[in-house]
């Protein structure tokens, strides 16, 4: 900034002073102008010199509002997703419980509803606890079922609690048959690296007869451990043949043990044939998938 120079306005000393006084008086008098005049001056400046700056402010505000709207919308979407996902789980659980209640109603007092507890510790895979025991009439070897079919069997009974194994346990075996009772065998499991991919196999069926994929496989009642008629799985495909005398089939299990939270446990005297209890549920689903029966 130049420090000093000659007076730039050389047209006499009075003129700049008069001009300054005029502007000063003008500035001081602006406050006392009528509101209409003040607003007219302000409006003129706003639509001329200040217009681009006000437009900039408007654009920035609009951008901020849009950003806020996007954040709000994202928040609403997240909330709705959370609500919907929660409702889906509740709906699923509700549906399962209703079907289990229907089954319990059909079964009457021969089956007791209870909740499945899993240890979740190493070595406790395939094992579970149920909060019913000898006091409620539960016995060792009592089948554990859901509305879809067989889950497993009770191994150890105490007064108020029992321990059982599901079908993924290596010791699990059940005598089974096709739904129409024309082919019999033993169902056990094939363990894989993970329990989620364990599979059931129907062993010891005649070599000369074929079971159609989708045919329901039920407990046969032989051996008197499991009542007759509890769905175990449906035929999937041939697993292997044993020489010229036998075949085994992969089964698609009716029940995935990892999904089970509520079950029914059979009490003493549950009956010899309980197949009618599942006719309305899983077996009919299996029938709808494919034609029933064996293929000679």
């Amino acid at each position, binding site marked *: *900034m130049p*420090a000093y120079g*000659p007076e730039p306005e050389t047209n006499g000393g009075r003129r700049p002073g008069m001009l300054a006084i005029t502007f000063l008086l003008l500035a001081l008098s602006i406050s006392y102008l009528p509101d209409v005049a003040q607003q007219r001056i302000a409006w003129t400046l706003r639509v001329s010199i*200040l217009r681009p700056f006000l437009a900039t*402010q408007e654009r920035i505000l609009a951008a901020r509002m849009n950003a806020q709207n996007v954040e709000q919308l994202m928040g609403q979407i997240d909330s709705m997703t959370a609500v919907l996902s929660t409702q889906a789980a509740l709906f699923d659980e509700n549906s399962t419980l209703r079907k289990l209640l229907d089954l319990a109603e059909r079964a009457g007092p021969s089956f007791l509803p209870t909740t499945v507890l899993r240890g979740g510790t190493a070595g406790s895979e395939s094992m579970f606890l149920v909060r019913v025991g000898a006091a409620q009439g539960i016995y060792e070897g009592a089948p554990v079922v859901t509305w879809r079919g067989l889950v497993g069997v009770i191994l150890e009974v105490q007064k108020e609690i029992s321990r059982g194994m599901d079908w993924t346990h290596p010791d699990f075996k059940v005598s089974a048959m096709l739904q129409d009772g024309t082919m019999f065998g033993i169902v056990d499991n094939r363990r894989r690296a993970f329990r989620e991919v364990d599979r059931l196999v129907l062993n010891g069926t005649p070599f000369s007869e074929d079971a159609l994929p989708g045919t329901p496989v039920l407990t046969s009642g032989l051996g008197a451990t499991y009542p007759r008629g509890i769905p175990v799985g449906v035929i999937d495909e041939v697993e292997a043949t044993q020489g010229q005398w036998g075949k085994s089939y992969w089964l698609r299990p009716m029940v995935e043990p990892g999904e089970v939270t509520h079950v029914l446990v059979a009490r003493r005297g549950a009956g010899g044939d309980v197949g009618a209890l599942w006719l309305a549920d899983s077996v009919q689903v299996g029938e709808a998938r494919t034609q029933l029966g064996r293929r000679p």
Partner: protein
Amino acid sequence: MKTDARIWLLFAGLALMHLLLHVGFGIGRAAPDLLTVALLLGAREVGMGRAAGMGLLFGLLEDALSVLSFGANSAAMTIVAVLGAVTRDLFVGDSLFFLVSYFLIGKWVRDLVYWFMVGETLRQPFVDQVLIQGLIGGMYAAIVGVVLLAVTGLRQQAPA
């Protein structure tokens, strides 16, 4: 002496930047009062009359956005511009002390006059608005003004 064109470029640039920061971006007090800095710069380059005119124009620009205190900025800026032009005849020099004092006092006087003109209903307590905020704003303006003069090289070019 013919005024360096860069002074007027800086003058215009500061005015535009002030309006952009305060009106366009709505930054508020976080941005310095560049309009007063520009006015104080320009006031020493022209005579009292033109300086008063510039002050009136700048004040009106700020008043155009003021709903309740129309005229207060015009009066404040015009008075500051006149006083700035008067310093040309009273003070000779371009020292750092002078420049800091010039910008600081100029900005503070602007806030003081505004406080008087704005009216009792709108003014904040004198200590808050004039003594504290006014001095802080004055220091902010002084720093910005001195730095700008140094960065643009206008101060070094001035005669000793």
